[in-house]
Structures are given as structure tokens and as C-alpha cells.
């Protein structure tokens, strides 16, 4: 068991107040413990935590480029193995680095079967460069490159199913987590780093600046994502879903209404068809993962 009271991500970092990703970094390090080497890709987290010489990382940390963290980690892991060292290798990449630009690199590293844990902090767009859409941006979210407009409801595609893609690579442990459930998140990190082989953990990390809400709402919104079925917390062991967070589902609009990125679905007029399409995504998630708690008949 790692000592979860250790603070390995230092105060003084430059994340926005209420940043979901900063909280994710803190919790991931608590789950991983100090015998960890972190490999970061370029992105918000890398930038807010390491302007020279003010590093917030109290564990060894390396950043090379945007797209290559999984390959850098492959090299770190190979080197540790040859030296007979015991540190765990943890990658921290944003959704852009993971779903898009780093995809080849991640696929290669997972196929080779390196012993590392890849953690994607998923804030569902390129936040560092100013909120452009990524492969992780949800359906209808308005971003600076998928703006809502007179003939657009925002992002035209649903989120890429990254966990399934990596499970298909034969990853022994694939899971999702959320900053709203910190104990679960830390536990999953610990489980992943202690599972031999390439493991993947995708952490929902709301971004107040990018999604358009007040910083104090980060946890509440992350919770709503789970409660509406738009984010599912699950664990897959050897490709099979082993555990799922069940909920009494709320309608998706309770989640959508809290964020400016979905405001065009309600103003100037309510877009029932679009909201229904998003509800259908949640319904499919619910069916696929069996998240609904069946209430007893009254």
C-alpha cells in the first residue's frame, strides 16, 4: 500500500483555480506513491507545473514532446529494467496527446507490452492552446474549432472510445475514473501500477475555463457526468468489464445546462432533437455498461 497522505504535487503550480487536471495530478501521485517516474506529454498540465525552474513535481519527471510520451516511457522502462531498478513508470497525457497526436506512439507501446501505466487526464479538448476540439470532445460541445453557429451545433462527432481501443491491444488493465471520486481514482492508479504490462486509466477532469463554469463546480460537474451516464466509471481486466459504477440516472440536460460549451442547446431556443441525441448517447452507455440501478417498484 502506498502512503496516500504524501503530497507529491507541490503547491505553487499555475493551474487555474478549480482545475480538474491539477487535482488529477495530485490524486494520481497519491495513488502511485513516491517510487514513481512520471513522463508527461506537452499540454496544460506540463505547462502549469514546470516553468523553469519552478517544478511542482516531487517525483522524477520528464517531458519531451507532445506526441511521444508513450515512446519516452518505453525507453525509461527499458532502461530501468536493464538497471534492475524498481520505479514504476506513469505517463500523464492530456486527451489531445492521447486520443490524437500520440495515438501511433501509444498503440506501438501498448502492442510491445511495456510495463507502465498510461493516464489520460481527459478535459475533452485542447485547453492549453485555447479550447480546440480533440478526438475526446463530446458530441455537440462548442469549442474554438467546433463552434456552435447558425448552421452548427458544435462538435459533430461523439468521443472516441479510447479505453476499448487499448483493451483491444491486450492491455491487462483498462479503467476510467473521475476527480469526483478521489478514493476510487487513487485505488485504480495503485491497481494499475501494480499490474504488469501496459495499463490505461482515463480520468475525467473538468476544465472550468474550457467548459465554461465557475471553478468551485468542478467536482459537482464531474459527478453529474457520471450521474447522467455521459461518463462511465469502469474497470476492464484482460478486456472484460469487471466493475462499473452504478447510478440512478438523471437526464443529460442536468449536466449540459451547467456548462457554456452546451449553452447553444438551450439558448436562444431549446434544441430538443440535439438534447435527445445526447440522451441517446447516455442511454447507449447505460446499456453497454449496465450502470442503471433498478429501483424497486413502488
Amino acid at each position, binding site marked *: 500500500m502506498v502512503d496516500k497522505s504524501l503530497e507529491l504535487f507541490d503547491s505553487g503550480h499555475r493551474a487555474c483555480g478549480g482545475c480538474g487536471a491539477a487535482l488529477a495530478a495530485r490524486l494520481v501521485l497519491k495513488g502511485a506513491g513516491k517510487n*514513481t517516474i512520471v513522463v508527461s506529454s506537452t499540454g496544460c498540465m506540463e505547462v502549469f507545473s*514546470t516553468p*523553469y525552474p519552478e517544478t511542482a513535481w516531487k517525483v522524477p519527471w520528464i*517531458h519531451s514532446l507532445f506526441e511521444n510520451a508513450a515512446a519516452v516511457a518505453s525507453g525509461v522502462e*527499458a532502461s530501468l529494467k536493464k538497471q534492475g531498478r524498481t520505479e514504476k513508470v506513469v505517463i500523464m497525457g492530456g486527451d489531445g496527446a492521447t486520443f490524437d497526436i500520440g495515438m501511433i506512439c501509444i498503440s506501438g507501446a501498448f502492442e*510491445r507490452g511495456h510495463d507502465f501505466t498510461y493516464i489520460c487526464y481527459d478535459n475533452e479538448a485542447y485547453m492549453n492552446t485555447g479550447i480546440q476540439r480533440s478526438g475526446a470532445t463530446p458530441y455537440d460541445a462548442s469549442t474554438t474549432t467546433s463552434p456552435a453557429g447558425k448552421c452548427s451545433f458544435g462538435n459533430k462527432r461523439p468521443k472516441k472510445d479510447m479505453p476499448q481501443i487499448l483493451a483491444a491491444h491486450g492491455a491487462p488493465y483498462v479503467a476510467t475514473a473521475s476527480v469526483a471520486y478521489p478514493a476510487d481514482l487513487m485505488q485504480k492508479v495503485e491497481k494499475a501500477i501494480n499490474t504488469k504490462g501496459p495499463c490505461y486509466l482515463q480520468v475525467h477532469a473538468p476544465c472550468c475555463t474550457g467548459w465554461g463554469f465557475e471553478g468551485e463546480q468542478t467536482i459537482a460537474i464531474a459527478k453529474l457526468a457520471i450521474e447522467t451516464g455521459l461518463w462511465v466509471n469502469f474497470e476492464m481486466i484482460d478486456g472484460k468489464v469487471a466493475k462499473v459504477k452504478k447510478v440512478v440516472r438523471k437526464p443529460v440536460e442536468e449536466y449540459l445546462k451547467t456548462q457554456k460549451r452546451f449553452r447553444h442547446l438551450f439558448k436562444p431556443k431549446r434544441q430538443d432533437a440535439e438534447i435527445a441525441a445526447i440522451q441517446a448517447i447516455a442511454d447507449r452507455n447505460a446499456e453497454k455498461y449496465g450502470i442503471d440501478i433498478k429501483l424497486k417498484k413502488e
Partner: protein
Amino acid sequence: MMEITEGSHAIAKIVARCRPQVVSAYPITPQTHIVEALADYVADCKLDADYITVENEMSALSACIGASAAGSRVYSATTSQGLALMFEACFNAAGMRLPIIMSIANRALGAPLSIWNDQQDSISLRDSGWLQFYAEDNQEATDMHIIAYKVAEDHSVLLPVFVCFDGFILSHTYEPVDMLPQEDVDKYLPKFTPYEKLDAEDPISFGMYATPEYYHEFRYEIDRAAKRAADVYRAAAKDFAGMFGRDYSGLIEEYRMEDAETAIVAMGSICGTIKDAIDEMRDAGKKVGLVRIRVFRPFPDKEIAQALAKTKRVAVLDKNISLGSKGAVALEVKDAMYGKTIPVLNYILGLGGRDVRKRDIAAIVALAEKGEGDMFYGLRKEVL
């Protein structure tokens, strides 16, 4: 021990004797024989390294970056398109001050696609912070790898090195090569001592970003290290000469330059042909010499200026072209000769594997004597 062996195999054997702990490479013609041979050594437990079979060159170099930062001696090899794909990681490895050694079996860059030799690939990375050594033959290509590790890993340098040799012309040619045995390589090249490493016992952050308050100075520091590498190289090559008899300690090599009126400047295997051509021209009474650039980065401008000071004309032969300008070597030689009245003429030749023969060298010398230069040499008639 003298062996008749293919260039690639000689290089692979010596690289293995340098004991890299992590090898990471992606196959590309004409580099493949090197990495195949290394894979064989690992498979036969002759090399105690982790061979990472990456999915592309970007990842090949990235894995080397990670392994080097974690404290291992590392090795990669590539060429041409592969090197171009590594472009971003090349700048990154140098800026992060990681002593990675990479063999470059020099090859042309597309388009049009060409698997044959010129030096456009490594030359195009001249601003990246990698030191660049160019070998004339397989003996030198082989020995250079050992020296490269010594220079790169010196704590006053800490920069990566391209060891360049012409693809096919050297990589696939059988020549006699005196292979240093393991104990000699061990004697010359000590165990890798990283300057700093990723280590949970003593955490450090690698690859932070620099604000405008610091970036300028970091680039200055890299440039200074690259320039310091000149002396470190000389000393390392002198040590090598002292131990094994082969002297590569000049950043340039002068051939029959003592009274030369026409000096040729070139790099790589073409210099063997040039030396033969010079011998023939000398026999015919022409005073021609060669300045061969062995170390292109750091650029030996003072040595070149001094070597060329008493000539009447200089012909720089470039197996590359900075399109819209001149050959890269010529541009830098002209800079080294700034303020002098000696004409420096540039000839682009041998691109994409076009053969360069002794008679071509003689023809270029004749052109230089007429003052005709700054041209593509030997073009087909239909483009004239």
C-alpha cells in the same frame, strides 16, 4: 583484428562493444543491416541490451531520450525519411542535453523518393544541436562510434552525435576493417556515468519549459557546449590515436595541401575518389589538394580558413543543396573565408546516388580554374 566485412556489420559489431543498454530503431534502407545485426546480438545474448522495436523513427529517438534520461547508454540508427520524421525529437534530444549516439547511413530525401546516397538528411539537421561526424571509409565510420560516445558523454559536452557515413557506398561495401576487441573498447570507453538521471531517490524534472527570461540563455548554453565539443573531440581522438594508432584528431583532414593552388573541400566517402583524382592531377603537374571535413558540427571554421589561406581558389563539393541558395558546406566555407579574396566556388553533385568518378573531380577542378562554379555539376542535357 582485421576483418573483411560489410560496413554495416562492422559498425554494428563495434556499437555492441560500446555496450549500449537500450537500442531503439526502426528499419529503413540503407540502415537495416546495422539494426538487424544488433537484433541478432541481443537474440544470441552477445549484447546485454533491451532492443525496442518501435513503430516509427519518431518513437525510436523518443525511446532513446527516455532511456538516456533514465541513466542508460543508448543507440539508434536511421537515415533520410526516418531522420526527417525525427526532426522534432532531434532538437529535443540536443536541448535536453542527452548523449545519444545515432548512426546515419546518409541517403537522399524525397521527393522524388530515392533510396540512394547523398548527405541531404543529416545536413538538414545542422541547426539541431547534434554534433556531426562524417566518415570517409568503414574503418573511420567504425572507430568514430567509439569516439562519439566518449565526446557526447563528456560532462562538459552532453550533446548527441550523428555518426554519418554514405549509404550503400560505405554501409553495404565490404572492406578490411581493423575491429577493436572488447577489452580495448572497454579500456577506452568507460561505463556510462550520467550527469543526472531520473531517479526516485533524488527526483529531478527533465524537459521543463523556458519562459522568455531563460530560453535565450538555454540556447546559448547548448551552442557553447557544441563549441566546447571541438576540444573534447580533439582530446578524445588523440587518446584513441595513442591507444590504437589511428589518428582522427583533426576536425579536418588535409591531403596534399602543402602547395595547393586549387583546394577541394568535401565530406564523406567521395573524398577517397577525390584523393585518387588528386594523385593523378598531381602527376600531371596540377597543384590540387583536399580539405576533408571530418567534423561538420561543431564547424571547424578557423581550421578551414587556415588550411585554405594560401590557395588560389576553393572548390566546395556539396552532396546536398539548400534549395534556393547553395550547398550547405559551401555556405559555411564562404563564411569561414569571409574577408579573404580567394574565390570559393560551389558544385552540387552526386545527389540521389549519382556516381561521382575521378574524371568528374578533374572536370570540376578545370571549371574552378576557369572561375566557373556555383552550379549543379553534371546535369543531364534535357534540363540545360
